């Protein structure tokens, strides 16, 4: 299996400015708290990703992001497995994006990853993605 393309938030911002689509896979409550302030962002929560990934255009450059870049890395591989070739993971997620002072709405309070375990949010502070 090919390694996923991973880009830092600075490179991701450059890609977005040139027309790449940002796909935010954080859950609705995370997005309500703080979100990427870019002209176009597609929200597909990780918990619904398997059912809804088909909404993402195959022929477009895509940057996938989450809180710290782990759920989004899994989502990136998932897309690659489904034939998406122009997809990149944003390393370190919105946490690093915020640290860089890039455009945001709201205030980021969660500085750790979300969870890819079945019933999300139950990881209780482990190193869950």
């Amino acid at each position, binding site marked *: 299996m090919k390694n996923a393309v991973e880009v830092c938030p600075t490179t991701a911002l450059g890609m977005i400015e040139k027309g790449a689509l940002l796909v935010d896979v954080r859950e609705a409550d995370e997005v309500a708290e703080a979100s990427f302030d870019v002209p176009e962002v597609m929200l597909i929560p990780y918990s619904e990703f398997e059912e809804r990934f088909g909404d993402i255009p195959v022929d477009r450059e895509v940057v996938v992001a989450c809180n710290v870049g782990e759920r989004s890395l899994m989502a990136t591989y998932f897309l690659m497995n489904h034939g998406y070739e122009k997809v990149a993971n944003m390393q370190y997620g919105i946490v690093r994006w915020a640290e860089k002072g890039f455009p945001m709405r709201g205030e980021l309070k969660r500085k750790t990853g979300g969870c890819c*375990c079945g019933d999300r949010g139950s990881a209780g502070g482990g*190193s869950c993605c």
Partner: protein
Amino acid sequence: MKQVKILGTGCAKCNQLADAVKAVIAREGIDASVEKVEDIRKIMAYNVLSTPALVVDEEVRCKGRVPESDELKEMLTR
């Protein structure tokens, strides 16, 4: 010998599944090797978004939850 893999990035639930699987294997005397797979690239080779997942002889038998021991036994001996 069955090849059993636990896919997960090391959270509490993943460890819980690994412990439960090992307990069933020991209790039932199942001839199996158990490997934990924590590398995201290797996990995604199975195309599993929801972890933990249980793989037996390269087949994904369960994902996103920790089954009860009776169900685990069935998954491990099928």
